């Protein structure tokens, strides 16, 4: 079967909206409901965040959601259980994004098998080193039909971007600025320069821009320089205020097409 991520980029080509949310937040059993509401609201891709006690790459908003999810009792075992009917209820691509330690403790082989079983399409593990992926895990990911998405930042060298492009599939996650999640909320001239530089490299993978995408203005601006964009902290903030299905759908609409 074709990976749903490829299918999404093929079908739609432009302005894909990818929404990140933390599993088990705001309530333990919200994971599937939030996913369904996001798809119904018009999201094109989902990233389910795996909560971790020490999320060094995340700003206060996602940190707080992680802490709450852990307090709610979220674990990988529970998450896979919550997602067992994922593919009867959600048809858009789903990635899991999280830190490597909980995955290692669960067992990477078991984790990949479970992802395949419930219908996860790809993984984003920001602290998994490229060399370790290449040497140890690539065949395993491939065996289970999982795409691996790496991040690039304004500081990533062209050579490294090329290497990342070779090893990635699905898309490349362009971190908009050198920052933790949720830090900045505007797109500057230096960022535009960086997006243009990457776009001129002729990479095989589509790109999505993330970090600091918080509203229609930043989303549509980011989409001028990439195939789509990722909203994280802004959505978590929304969930912390109102996590009803209706609020979620309105949020998605406000990002994609407020008029």
């Amino acid at each position, binding site marked *: 079967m074709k990976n749903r991520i490829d299918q999404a980029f093929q079908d739609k080509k432009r302005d894909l909206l990818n929404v990140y949310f933390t599993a088990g937040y705001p309530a333990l059993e919200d994971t599937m409901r939030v996913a369904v509401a996001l798809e119904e609201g018009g999201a094109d891709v989902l990233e389910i965040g795996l909560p971790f006690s020490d999320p060094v790459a995340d700003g206060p908003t996602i940190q707080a959601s992680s802490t709450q999810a*852990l307090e709610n009792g979220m674990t990988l075992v529970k998450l896979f259980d919550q997602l067992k009917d994922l593919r009867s209820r959600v048809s858009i691509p789903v990635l899991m994004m999280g830190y490597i*330690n909980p995955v*290692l*403790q*669960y067992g990477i082989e078991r984790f990949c098998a479970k992802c395949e079983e419930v219908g996860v399409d790809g993984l984003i593990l920001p602290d998994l080193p490229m060399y370790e992926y290449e040497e140890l895990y690539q065949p395993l990911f491939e065996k289970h039909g999982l795409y691996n998405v790496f*991040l690039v930042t304004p500081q990533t*060298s062209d050579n490294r971007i090329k290497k990342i492009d070779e090893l990635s599939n699905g898309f490349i996650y362009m*971190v908009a600025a050198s*920052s*933790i999640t949720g830090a900045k909320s505007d797109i500057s001239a230096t960022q535009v320069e960086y997006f243009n530089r990457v776009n001129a490299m002729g990479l095989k993978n589509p790109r999505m821009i993330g970090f600091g995408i918080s509203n229609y203005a930043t989303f549509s601006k980011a989409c001028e320089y990439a195939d789509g964009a990722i909203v994280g902290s802004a959505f978590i903030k929304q969930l912390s205020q109102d996590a009803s299905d209706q609020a979620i759908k309105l949020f998605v609409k406000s990002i994609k097409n407020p008029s």
Partner: protein
Amino acid sequence: MTDTSSKYLVDERGYFGKFGGAYIPEMLYPNVEELRENYLKIINEHGFKERFDQLLKDYVGRPTPLYHAARLSEKYGAKIYLKREDLCHTGAHKVNNTIGQILVAEALGKKKIIAETGAGQHGVATATVCALMGLECIVYMGEVDMARQKPNVERMKILGAEVRPATSGSKTLKDATNEAMRHWINNPADTHYIIGSVVGPHPYPDMVARFQSVISEEIKHQLLEKEGKSDPDYVFACVGGGSNAAGAYYHFLGHENVKLIATEAAGLGNHSGKSAATTALGREGVLHGSRTILMQTDDGQVVEPYSISAGLDYPGIGPFHAHLFDSGRALFESITDEQAMTAGVLLSKLEGIIPAVESSHALAALENFQFKSDDIVVVNLSGRGDKDLETYIKWGKY
């Protein structure tokens, strides 16, 4: 005798055995990579070595004495020497590393310094070298630690540093480290992060161990002078992240006849749920950028540690020590609050030296050994107890 040190030191991939590496998000990669590419070149330059040695001598007050503790020796029936890192400027071994790293930061052209601190000793040592070099300094410290190590918070401020509270998680060293890493992600270009122990992504554990290795370098020469041989029978050191222990072991790693004893803080006991004894309670995992041993739940969430000693209140150990543990090269002992405080008071009464509560964990382990009367035992006295007066007073049993 064959020297087996290469088995225990870092390999060209940045690993100590199976531990170490650089498990960092891409946002940190350029910073860490810049350091990795340059650190050996920088520290092997002739000018660097000269300045480092000069500052250690004239500013830190090295070499620190290797003191034969006669009354302590009598009590334990062995020849016990104390390596007096407590006499370093700022009161602990931490300054050996900050002197080294500030020179590296300067060579890299960095203008701002950040650090994390637990007991405040590393924060003070960082604030000190920043004052020395005229660099801006921000120190992250857990809110809980700020309360229990107040004098050090004020010392950092007097030295011109800004102290920022870490308010997430257990509000101790682990969380201060998270905050410092986040700060570095947000400020990649002009900032150097001075990590305070042999933890973090490669090359930090190796770099910090090299700067601290001056401790065992001196012990070797001092023992040769005093005992006619450079190898002791035992070296005792406490392990938080493990920098003082790494320094005290470094030049003895390859001499398998030297027994290396690492003491971890067991808080109220390893079965009390209030401990920081990583090797006793932890398993392999990834924390703060390296594959190491850490205390965690079955689901891989990091457990909040506890120790009376802020400097040992950390849920992991550096990969350097994870490998020493895994390979059996060092013997790891768990020491409770009670045992450590008792040993600290004992040293004060017997030798007129009030040790840091961290260092008391190394002293306490002497109780667990049957020595031969001619055994030469070195205890690394990593710091002095001035910062811990309040802890001693609260403890009260003296």
